[in-house]
């Protein structure tokens, strides 16, 4: 069945592939296909739009190789609406005298659905390893991105029933990049708890599926480049809020009578239990508090957990919910998880171990397949430790001030996509003795990346853009893997650690609250 489909599709696309091959004979590679998740798709700052897709690492890489017909499933971008069903693009914006995260535009629909062949960028927001072989009929209700990118769910489509790996193979690429695996473990970070088979992929399942993916992509004369899973402890979502009470005016730790920072309060877990009869006890050092603790939530009346006082000792700040623990993720068998915002040190270790196990398998699989391995894990750790300095300009991983991550706190910025493309090019050149030109960083470093309409609206000016606009319910676990964010209606304002305090804050919150009415 699938073979006949493949043949049919080949016949349909043979003409265009032949033309492309002839025109690009001088290039090191004639056909490049990228597989992966939202990062590969070019998703950043909460949305997948062509402004970001044009800066995706596959797009940059294709440009450097000289491939002219590199096709991505481009999504349009439109003015910000109040429709909560539409994905919103985020930017850092001015809120009073702070910088927060706000929605600035809408992600609109795909623009080139009629492309009569698979896309060259088959990155699918939300995809885990198994999706690359199992997602043969994408359900738009389950993952609208997958449906729009794969176009394999309709019996009338020439791509019907073809998985991402099969679609890639159909294009007969001589270069394939594969960057998958983050979504096999990321759920644990988002939920504050890891439960295999519920929010993470069991290791044996991952190994079987990953091997199947690589096997399906391996072909004679084809160069396969594999990137491993980055260190999830490095993403701003998990690293921005320290496990101690911060002074909202300075963003510096509040010091207790002993001169030490005052830990936030959590419910404890099996490894770090609270004393008997105590519902909230200090978080041990090394606990990660996710940005979920700072995001306004509809269920909390537009407030955030920390904003209401969860996790904050009443002796420090008599907030309404002070003295109550920040929630940790809990598992309610058989398949339910109540998300939390805490990763206790043992949970961090378990997640790190899983990432390590995944990467060990990726490395051995890559080696067996003769693939070029790009160690994204180590590279990102180095950037976290030292920054990435190019021409005297240093990119860092800190949220909002570093430049490496986009406004959603998860996904790499356009700058980082160029860095990734550069790392891949250097790896290919070293392994193959090629001289694919490295990309130009000047443009991506110094050219503002704003939605076109926001430029006209004067983004950055506190008196415009923000009025009447929505703040996002950022980092709400309810809907996401590495894909998108939920919106909600009503007045909201950013709190604490998500904002950068510029100066004295007197009146700032009131001002932003007034404007959001």
């Amino acid at each position, binding site marked *: 069945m699938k073979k006949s489909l493949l043949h049919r599709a080949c016949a349909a696309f043979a003409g265009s592939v032949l033309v492309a091959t002839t025109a690009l004979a001088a290039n090191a590679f004639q056909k490049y296909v990228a597989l992966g998740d939202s990062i590969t798709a070019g998703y950043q*700052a909460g949305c997948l739009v062509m402004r970001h897709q044009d800066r995706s690492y596959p797009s940059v890489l294709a440009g450097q190789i000289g491939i002219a017909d590199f096709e991505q499933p481009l999504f349009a971008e439109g003015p910000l609406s109040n429709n909560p069903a539409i994905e919103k693009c985020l*930017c*850092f*914006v*001015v809120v009073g*005298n702070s*910088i927060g995260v706000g929605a600035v535009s809408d992600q609109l629909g795909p623009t080139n659905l009629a492309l009569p062949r698979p896309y060259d960028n088959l990155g699918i927001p939300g995809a885990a390893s198994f999706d690359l072989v199992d997602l043969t009929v994408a359900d738009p209700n389950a993952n609208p991105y997958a449906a729009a990118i794969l176009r394999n769910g309709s019996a009338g489509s020439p791509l019907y029933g073809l998985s991402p790996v099969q679609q890639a193979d159909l294009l007969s690429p001589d270069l394939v990049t594969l960057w998958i695996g983050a979504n096999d473990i990321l759920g644990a970070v988002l939920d504050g708890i890891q439960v295999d088979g519920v929010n993470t992929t069991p290791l044996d399942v991952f190994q079987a599926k990953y091997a199947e993916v690589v096997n399906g992509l391996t072909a004679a004369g084809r160069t396969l480049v594999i990137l491993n899973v980055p260190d999830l402890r490095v993403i701003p979502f998990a690293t921005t809020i320290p496990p101690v009470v911060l002074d909202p005016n300075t963003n510096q730790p509040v010091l207790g009578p002993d001169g030490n920072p005052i830990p936030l309060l959590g419910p404890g877990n099996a490894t770090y239990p609270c004393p008997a009869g105590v519902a909230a006890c200090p978080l041990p050092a090394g606990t990660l508090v996710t940005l979920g603790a700072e995001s306004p939530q509809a269920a909390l009346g537009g407030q955030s957990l920390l904003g209401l006082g969860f996790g904050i000792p009443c002796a420090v700040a008599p907030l309404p919910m002070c003295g109550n623990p920040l929630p940790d993720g809990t598992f309610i068998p058989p398949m339910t998880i109540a998300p939390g915002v805490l990763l206790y040190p043992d949970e961090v270790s378990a997640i790190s171990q899983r990432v390590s196990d995944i990467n060990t398998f990726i490395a051995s699989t890559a080696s067996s397949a003769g693939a070029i391995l790009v160690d994204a894990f180590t590279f990102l750790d180095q950037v976290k*430790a*030292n*920054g990435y*300095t*190019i*021409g*005297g*300009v*240093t*990119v*860092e991983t800190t949220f*909002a*001030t*570093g*430049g490496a991550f*986009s*406004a959603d706190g998860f996904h790499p*910025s*356009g*700058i980082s996509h*160029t860095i990734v493309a*550069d790392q891949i090019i250097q790896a290919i050149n070293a392994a193959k003795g090629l001289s694919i*030109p*490295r*990309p*130009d*960083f*000047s*443009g*991506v*470093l*110094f*050219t*503002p*990346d*704003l939605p076109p309409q926001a430029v006209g609206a004067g*983004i*950055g000016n*506190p008196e415009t853009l923000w009025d009447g606009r929505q703040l996002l319910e950022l980092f709400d676990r309810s809907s996401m893997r590495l894909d998108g964010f939920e919106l909600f209606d009503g007045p909201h304002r950013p709190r604490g650690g998500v904002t*950068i305090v*510029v*100066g004295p804050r007197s009146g700032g919150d009131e001002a932003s609250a007034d404007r959001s009415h």
Partner: protein
Amino acid sequence: MIRPRRVRHVLGGLVAAGLLVAAPAFPAGFEIFTQGARATGMGLAFAAVADDPTAIFYNPAGLGWQQHFSVELGSSFITKLSGDFHGANPFPGDGTVGDQHKTTFVLPTFYLVLPLTNEINLGIGAFSQYGLGYRWDGGESWVGRFISSNAVIKSVDLNPVLSWRLTPQIAIAGGADYRISMVQLEKDNATYDPLTDSFADTSHVKLDSSIWDNHKWGWNVGIMIRPAPEFSVGAAYRSAMTINYTGTATFTQNLTGDPVLDAIVASKLPVGKRAVTTSIGFPASMNLGISSTIAQNTTIALEADWTEWSKFQSLNISFPDLPGGTTCAPNGIMVCRQTNWKDSWAYRFGVEQKLGKWSLRTGFYIDKTPQPAADAGPILADNDRTGYTFGFGYNTDHWGINLADLYLKVKDRTVAGESTDNFFGTYHESVNIAIFGLRFSF
């Protein structure tokens, strides 16, 4: 404490005479070897010739055969003929260009020879052996400004020496070398602007120091052997020294027009002049030469010069009174740069033809760079150099005037692959040095 101050007063007079000026970098590294007009005419192969007052610099043992009280005043005029940069991917990108500031540097020299006995001579020299002037035009359009827009090293050596002619064929010499110096570095800083998801040029920092505050004593020795009147062998050595600099850092904000970003930058930018310290290791050097009069009135000289540039291993700049100022970036703001220079050799050839009181000279040398390619950048991009020299002079027993010109071609330096600055492209540079010396002997 008193003695250095006195010495500095002496130097003050030299400064007033225009001695103290910024100098461009050459020969290789940031050493300047054009300290005499006759030597320059002969390809700087002078360690075994050294028969005029400039011997104080080239080989003080050459004073051993000089029987008269002599003074030599001179100056070199160093002109950067070309100095440009063509950028490449990944940064600053194909098609980007930069231009070095073109100017003429004037570097005066002063030498005095005072015979004390028939065998012992006192010499005093003042010259600038080390200097760097690597300045880029373009202000905020110079693509390398986040690394350096202006790097300056100035120094003046005051070098008293004593020579002793042991036998009619052998002389030795030794001296003290008091060096005062200053460094200056200017660059811009880029800050990530979250409101535009791009970097902006947000501040300018100027690190400066006074030449009167930074000094060090070193020493030099030399030996010259003349087994026959027409043959000479010379060797000279000048010690290494490390100067620890103190100075000031001045931060100036570059307004972006975005009030929020500007406020963030302003809140982080140090105000006023802040202390800055750094240290530069100046290399030891050794000059080994032979010269011979191969025909009547024709002298040829060969020389090999070694410079201990491995002394210059790092460039660390700390800000002792700023938070994180003594911790290397990224955790602190201290600049810690590994330079990893290597010892280098230069090979020189020169010839002088005497025609009565007139002399014609020419020479040629190659000078290997001590700088690894990875270290080449906007602060200094050095490479192997080839020098072509020509000179002439008119000399009597009582006075003489000598002129020379040196055309120095620096091999284009292309930075690709490894780069400390992650700054790629090709540097092109050529330099002309005109020099004169005016000697009076009594």
